[in-house]
C-alpha cells in the first residue's frame, strides 16, 4: 500500500541553519512560490526517506516566537497551527536549533509544544558545537523536553542520516487523531517563565565551555571597529563591483561569440527574407544580448549569498544603522537595499523584515534607486563603447571606476530621497527599534550557495525566455513593419512603426540628447531594463544590415556623441524602467498611490539628471 505524502515543516530562529538543513534534505528538488495573498516566500522541497516514504518539507520563515509580529512570522504561526489557507497541517514539525546557541530555540520549542503538533528537535551544526567543547546530554534533553532530539550536521554528507531514520520511526507511529492545541499568545510573564524554564533545562543538559568563539571575536574586533569596519565594508563593495566587471568578461565574450556564430549560421543557412531576419535579428541577437549578462548576475549573487552565509550581512546592518538612520532609514533596511543591487523585486519583498510600516515604506520607495543587475547590461554596453579601458593610478580600471561611480550615484541619491521623505512626508515619526542577532561567523556552505545561485540563474533565464523573448518579438515586429515601399533608398526601419513612435516622443527627449532610436528602445525597456540593450541592437542591427550585427557597442560609438552616452547613463541611474518593480511596489504597499509616487519621482529625477549631464557635457565639448 502506498503511504500518503508525509508533510514536514521546518521551524527555527533566524540563523539556526534551517535553510542549509532544508537544502541538505532536498537538494535541488525545491519549489519556490508565494503564500496566497501575501508576498512571503514559500519554499517547499521533496525527498524520500530510507524506508521509502515520500516527504514534502516546507522551510518556514525564521521566528523567535509564535506571536507573529510581521507577515513572515504570522505565516510560521498559522502554518504550524494549521490555519494557513490552502495548506495542510504539518504531520511533523522539525524545530531546528543551532547547537552552539540553544537558549532562544529551546524557549521557542517550549512554546511550539503547546500547539500539540508532533515534533522533533534537531540539534543542527553539532560538529561546530563539539569543536567548541560544548557537550549536550541528548537523552536527558529529550526527556526534559518531552520531545525526541536528534543531532545533525547539515553541511556534511550523511550528516542528516539520524534525522532521516528518526523521521521514519516517528512517522510510522504518528497518531491519526488530532492533538490538543493549547497555544495562545504568551503574556510577558509567561514569556519570562518559559525562558527561565529553557535556561534551567539547558543548565541541566548542556555544558558550555569556558572558551567562547574566539575567531568570531577576533574578526569582529576588526569588522565592527567603528572606523575600520566601515573601511572593510567599502572595500568589500568595491571588490564586488570590480569583480562583476573583470571576472565576468571572458565568459561574456565566450557567450557573445557563441550567439554571433549561431546568428551567422542562421544567416548562411536560410534564404534572405523575413524568417531569416526574424531569427537572426529578432530572436538570436535579441535574447542573446541579454543572456550574455548571466555571468555578471551570477557573480553578484555569489557575493551576496557568500556574505549572508558567512554572517557578515548582520554586521553590515550594525555598521550602517546610524549612518542610514541619519537619512531616515532603519539598519535592517540595509539587507533589502543590498539585495536590490541584484534586483529591486526581491529587495522590496525583503523589506518585510522591517516591522515598522513607515520605515518599510521609505525603504520600498528608494529600493529601485539601487543599481540592479538589469542595469548592468546597459551600463556595460555604454561604458565599454565610450570609456577607454585604461588604468588610472596604475591599478584601477577606469571602466570599473565609472561603474563604481554609477553605483555610488544611485546610493547617494537614495539616501537623499530617503532624507527628504522623512523630512517632508513622514514628520511625526519616532525611529523604530533596531534589534538584531549577530550570528557567529561560519564557513559558507558551498552547496547552499550553489543551490541559491542556481535558483536565481534559473529565474533570470526564465525571464529571458519569456518576458524578454516576447518583447524582442514585439520590438522586431515594430522595427520591421510596415515594410519600406519598393525602390526606397532610406534604411527600412525609417518606415517602421518603431520609427513613428520613437519620432513622436523624440522631441520630449531631445533636450537630454536622446535620438529617436533611443526613444524606441526605452519603450520595451519598460518590461525589463536590460531589454533596452537588445532593443538598441535590433533597431541598429536592422538599420545597418548584417555588418552591424556583430557589435552593438561599436555601432553606438559611431552613432552617439559622448554627451548622449553620459546622458543615457544618468537616465538609467534613476529611470523607473521596470514594470515588474512597479507591480511589486503596488502589491507590497497595497496602494496605487505609492506606485504612482515612485514612478513620477524617479521619472522626474531621471529627466533632470540627464538634462544636467547632457548640457554640462556639451558645454565641456563632448557634444
Amino acid at each position, binding site marked *: 500500500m502506498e503511504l500518503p505524502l508525509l508533510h514536514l515543516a521546518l521551524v527555527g530562529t533566524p540563523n539556526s541553519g534551517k535553510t542549509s538543513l532544508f537544502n541538505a534534505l532536498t537538494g535541488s528538488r525545491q519549489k519556490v512560490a508565494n503564500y496566497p495573498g501575501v508576498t512571503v516566500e514559500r519554499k517547499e522541497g521533496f525527498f524520500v526517506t530510507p524506508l521509502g516514504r515520500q516527504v514534502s518539507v516546507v522551510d518556514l520563515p525564521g521566528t*523567535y*516566537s509564535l*506571536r507573529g*509580529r510581521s507577515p513572515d512570522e504570522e505565516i510560521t504561526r498559522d502554518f504550524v497551527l494549521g490555519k494557513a489557507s490552502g495548506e495542510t497541517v504539518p504531520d511533523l514539525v522539525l524545530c531546528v536549533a543551532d547547537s*552552539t*546557541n540553544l*537558549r*532562544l530555540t529551546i*524557549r521557542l520549542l517550549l512554546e511550539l509544544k503547546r500547539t500539540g503538533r508532533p515534533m522533533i528537535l534537531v540539534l543542527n551544526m553539532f560538529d561546530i558545537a563539539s569543536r567548541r567543547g560544548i557537550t549536550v546530554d541528548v537523552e536527558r534533553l529529550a526527556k526534559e523536553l518531552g520531545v525526541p532530539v536528534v543531532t545533525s550536521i547539515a553541511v556534511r554528507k550523511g550528516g542528516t542520516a539520524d534525522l532521516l531514520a528518526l523521521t521514519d520511526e516517528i512517522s510510522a507511529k504518528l497518531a491519526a487523531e488530532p492533538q490538543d492545541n493549547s497555544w495562545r499568545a*504568551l503574556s*510577558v510573564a509567561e*514569556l*519570562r517563565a518559559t*525562558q*527561565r524554564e529553557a*535556561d534551567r533545562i539547558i543548565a541541566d543538559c548542556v555544558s*558550555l565551555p569556558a572558551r*567562547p568563539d574566539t575567531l*568570531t*571575536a577576533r574578526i*569582529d574586533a576588526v569588522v*565592527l*571597529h*567603528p*572606523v575600520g*569596519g*566601515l573601511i572593510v565594508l567599502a572595500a568589500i563593495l568595491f571588490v564586488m563591483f570590480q569583480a562583476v566587471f573583470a571576472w565576468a568578461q571572458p565568459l561574456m565574450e565566450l557567450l557573445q561569440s557563441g550567439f554571433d556564430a549561431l546568428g551567422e549560421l542562421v544567416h548562411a543557412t536560410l534564404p534572405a527574407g523575413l524568417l531569416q531576419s526574424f531569427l537572426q535579428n529578432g530572436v538570436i541577437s535579441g535574447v542573446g544580448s541579454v543572456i550574455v549578462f548571466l555571468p555578471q548576475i551570477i557573480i553578484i549573487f555569489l557575493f551576496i549569498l557568500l556574505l549572508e552565509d558567512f554572517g557578515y550581512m*548582520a554586521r553590515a*546592518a*550594525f*555598521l550602517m*544603522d*546610524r*549612518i542610514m*538612520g*541619519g537619512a531616515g532609514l532603519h*539598519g535592517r533596511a540595509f539587507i533589502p537595499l543590498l539585495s536590490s543591487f541584484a534586483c529591486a523585486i526581491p529587495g522590496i519583498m525583503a523589506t518585510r523584515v522591517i516591522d*515598522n510600516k513607515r520605515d518599510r515604506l521609505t525603504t520600498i520607495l528608494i529600493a529601485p534607486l539601487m543599481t540592479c543587475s538589469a542595469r548592468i547590461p546597459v551600463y556595460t554596453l555604454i561604458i565599454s563603447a565610450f570609456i577607454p579601458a585604461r588604468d588610472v593610478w596604475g591599478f584601477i580600471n577606469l571602466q570599473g571606476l565609472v561603474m563604481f561611480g554609477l553605483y555610488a550615484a544611485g546610493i547617494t541619491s537614495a539616501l537623499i530621497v530617503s532624507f527628504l521623505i522623512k523630512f517632508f512626508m513622514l514628520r511625526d515619526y*519616532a*525611529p*523604530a*527599534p*533596531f*534589534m*538584531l*542577532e*549577530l*550570528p*557567529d561567523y561560519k564557513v559558507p556552505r558551498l552547496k547552499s550557495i550553489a543551490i541559491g545561485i542556481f535558483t536565481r540563474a534559473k529565474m533570470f533565464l526564465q525571464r529571458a525566455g519569456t518576458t524578454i523573448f516576447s518583447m524582442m518579438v514585439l520590438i522586431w515586429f515594430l522595427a520591421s513593419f510596415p515594410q519600406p515601399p519598393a525602390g526606397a533608398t532610406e534604411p527600412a526601419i525609417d518606415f517602421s512603426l518603431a520609427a513613428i513612435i520613437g519620432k513622436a516622443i523624440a522631441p520630449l527627449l531631445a533636450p537630454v540628447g536622446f535620438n529617436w532610436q533611443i526613444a524606441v528602445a526605452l519603450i520595451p525597456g519598460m518590461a525589463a531594463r536590460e531589454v533596452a540593450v537588445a532593443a538598441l541592437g535590433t533597431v541598429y542591427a536592422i538599420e545597418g544590415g548584417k555588418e552591424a550585427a556583430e557589435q552593438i557597442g561599436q555601432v553606438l560609438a559611431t552613432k552617439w556623441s559622448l554627451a548622449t552616452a553620459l546622458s543615457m547613463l544618468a537616465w538609467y541611474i534613476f529611470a523607473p524602467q521596470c514594470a515588474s518593480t512597479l507591480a511589486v511596489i503596488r502589491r507590497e504597499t497595497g496602494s496605487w498611490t505609492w506606485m504612482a509616487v515612485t514612478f513620477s519621482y524617479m521619472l522626474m529625477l531621471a529627466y533632470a539628471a540627464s538634462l544636467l549631464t547632457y548640457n554640462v557635457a556639451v558645454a565641456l565639448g563632448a557634444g
Partner: protein
Amino acid sequence: MTDLNETRRMMPLGLARRGYAGVIQHLSAKDAGSALSDVELESRLIELGFVEGARVEVLHEGLVGRDPIAVRVDNITIAVRRREAMAIVVA
C-alpha cells in the same frame, strides 16, 4: 555575602560603554522611550535572551554617537540601539 551585584551601582545598559560587563537586574520598558509599546519592547527583549540574571558585556559601539551597541548576552551577540537598551537595568 560578597555578592558583586549588591556592591555595584545599578544602571541602564543604554549608558554602558564598550568593555562594560554586568548582570541584568530587571527590565523597565517604560524608561526606554522606545517607539514600541512597553509590553512589545519587553517581549522582544526577552525573546532575544535579555532576562534577569543573564550576563551581558558591551563588545562594540557604532561610529555615530557610539550607537548602536553589540552586546554579548550569555553566549550570543545582539545588536541593539542605546534607546532600547535603556530598558535593561544592569549592575
